[in-house]
């Protein structure tokens, strides 16, 4: 897994609330047996009309917006457990997702793929979305070590599990850790 410490980037605003993982990557794209290429189809049915033409009004298609941060409405990533959603966002180039609330499974999937979900207050989110829309060149700073996100005059600290923070900073994943605990797991199994 890629290491993550800090990031300074512009962002793409996606105001919609309750964005479910079926929107992030529709089920018809889940037939692959590897993790590659999902980025091409992220938000497929919002980015393109059914005839294949580009939906110009969707923020990802608006050339004024860009960067590796996605700022999204409340309850991002709800629904299906498909990790393909995290692969699609990472594949497209997003490294940070900002929202006022994340669904549990998506949050874990993102962290397991080096994508940092940052939960901020409703007030901060609203202000940030407005600022990006007013000035798409706005730079946003994310500092994982010190756990804060900031832009012009806005700044907020965010929570992250201490263990997961170490994993992201060092690029470790849970498999390495669990295998290092094999003795304890074997001892537990012996009691069953």
């Amino acid at each position, binding site marked *: 897994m890629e290491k993550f410490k800090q990031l300074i980037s512009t962002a793409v605003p996606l*105001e*919609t*609330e*309750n964005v*479910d993982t*079926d*929107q992030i990557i*529709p*089920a*018809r794209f*889940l*037939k*692959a*047996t*590897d*993790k590659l290429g999902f980025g091409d189809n992220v938000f497929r*049915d919002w980015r393109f009309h*059914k005839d294949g033409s580009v939906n110009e009004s969707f923020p990802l298609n608006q050339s004024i917006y860009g960067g590796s941060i996605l700022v999204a*409405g*409340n*309850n991002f990533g*709800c*629904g*299906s*457990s*498909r*990790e*393909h959603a*995290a692969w699609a966002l990472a594949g497209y180039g997003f490294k940070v997702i900002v929202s006022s*609330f*994340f*669904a*549990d*499974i998506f949050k*874990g*999937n993102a962290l*397991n*793929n080096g994508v940092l979900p940052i939960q901020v207050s409703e007030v901060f989110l609203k202000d940030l979305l407005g600022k990006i829309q007013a000035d798409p060149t706005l730079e946003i700073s994310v500092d994982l070590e010190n756990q804060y996100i900031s832009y012009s005059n806005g700044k907020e600290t965010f929570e992250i*599990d*201490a*263990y997961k923070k170490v994993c992201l900073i060092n690029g470790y*994943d*849970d*498999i390495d*850790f*669990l*295998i290092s*605990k*094999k003795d*304890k*797991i074997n001892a*537990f*199994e012996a009691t*069953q």
Partner: protein
Amino acid sequence: MGKTLFDKVWDAHVVDVIENGPQILYIDKHLIHEVTSPQAFNELESRGIPVARPDKIVATADHNTPTLNQHLPVKDELSRNQLEQLTKNCAKNKITLYGLGHENNGIVHVIAPELGFTQPGMTMVCGDSHTSTHGAFGTIAFGIGTSQVAQVFASQCLLLEKPKSLRVNVNGKLAKGVLPKDVILYIISKLGTNSGTGYFCEYAGNVFEEMSMEGRMTVCNMSIEMGARGGMIAPDETTFEYVKGREFAPKGAAFDQKVAEWKTLPTDADAVFDQEYSINAEDIGPMITYGTNPGMGIKISEKIPEIADVSFEKSLAYMNFNKGESLIHKAINYVFIGSCTNSRIEDFRIAAAFVKGKKKAHNVIAWLVPGSQKVAKQIEAEGLKTIFETAGFTLRQPGCSACLAMNDDKIPEGEYCVSTSNRNFEGRQGQGARTILASPLVAAATAIEGRIVDITKYMN
């Protein structure tokens, strides 16, 4: 202070606690399917890690399988490849697979209970968010991502933060025509789609105590639709009776021993939950959804609420519905009875009881998809198949089908589908398809009438 059902099962499975971090939870049963497992197998193989406990894994093919002509090779190349990968991976790692056509094949959350893999007090996971279904047995069961599938393969454990506890009490008497699906759709409509996030939910009260196992599974199945990782119902005689005698359930003295253990699992009287809600059964009616998340539900006799909100309006625009509108008399061309929410024998009995002696509306295309080969056989054995066929319906073969439309069972763009599945997200049943979630009874009535009807009027 007493312990909750959840605490008791969780605490019995903690291998280790990381200081200021997650806990290592042991997993008793790992269910896998073709869509969310291949990348996990690849991960292990590329790192040279063996599957730790293949004996604790059960595999089925369900998400991406056709529901017609299952004896023929799967036409879609990508789907066929995914199924072949599953077969190959299971053979290589000595994992039990109930593939397409096997007598035990079916939707993962339907077959595990019916084969007796699902038992009270267990921890169960699957790369599928509706794994919460198994909570109906007093099991900690939840959906996981593919990285976690790989973790369980490698260690039979997961690193998790212990969720908070939530209890939803429903007491009173349900009106005629109000089914378990209506109970859970009502709960989600009242509490909201993210009310359960961060929590594990217990459903308590006489309504759940009096419910069949099939009904309890329907309720627990949709826990994730209010954000809860899982939902549980305390095991009781109904549970023990269901598990008894199933192929992989303990037998004889071992079963009695287990029952004695399972009887200690229900939440202690003095246990305290982080959050608790109470609902009167009398307030619940037959439900229907009008929007693009499962929380956007109303009683079938009610009108769409008038809420000024961008996301709400976007949702109504997608559905082509208006604020303040009633859905009664809306013409419907598609009906789907199936999915891990409502494809068990009880669901087909309910649909058949309504359909008996009537004819399907000409405008309706109805897909009736049993949850498993065993359910399909039982439908035939109980004479329900004849009832459906006489009414003009055809039964398809088991699988997830139009619930997520990965296979060819897709609802055309712009069409409405009254569906017994669990998600009405945009495009869930096909690009541009409009899903209306309901119980098997409402779905059956819609198929007969060709439009949405006030089912409460048929009940009197």
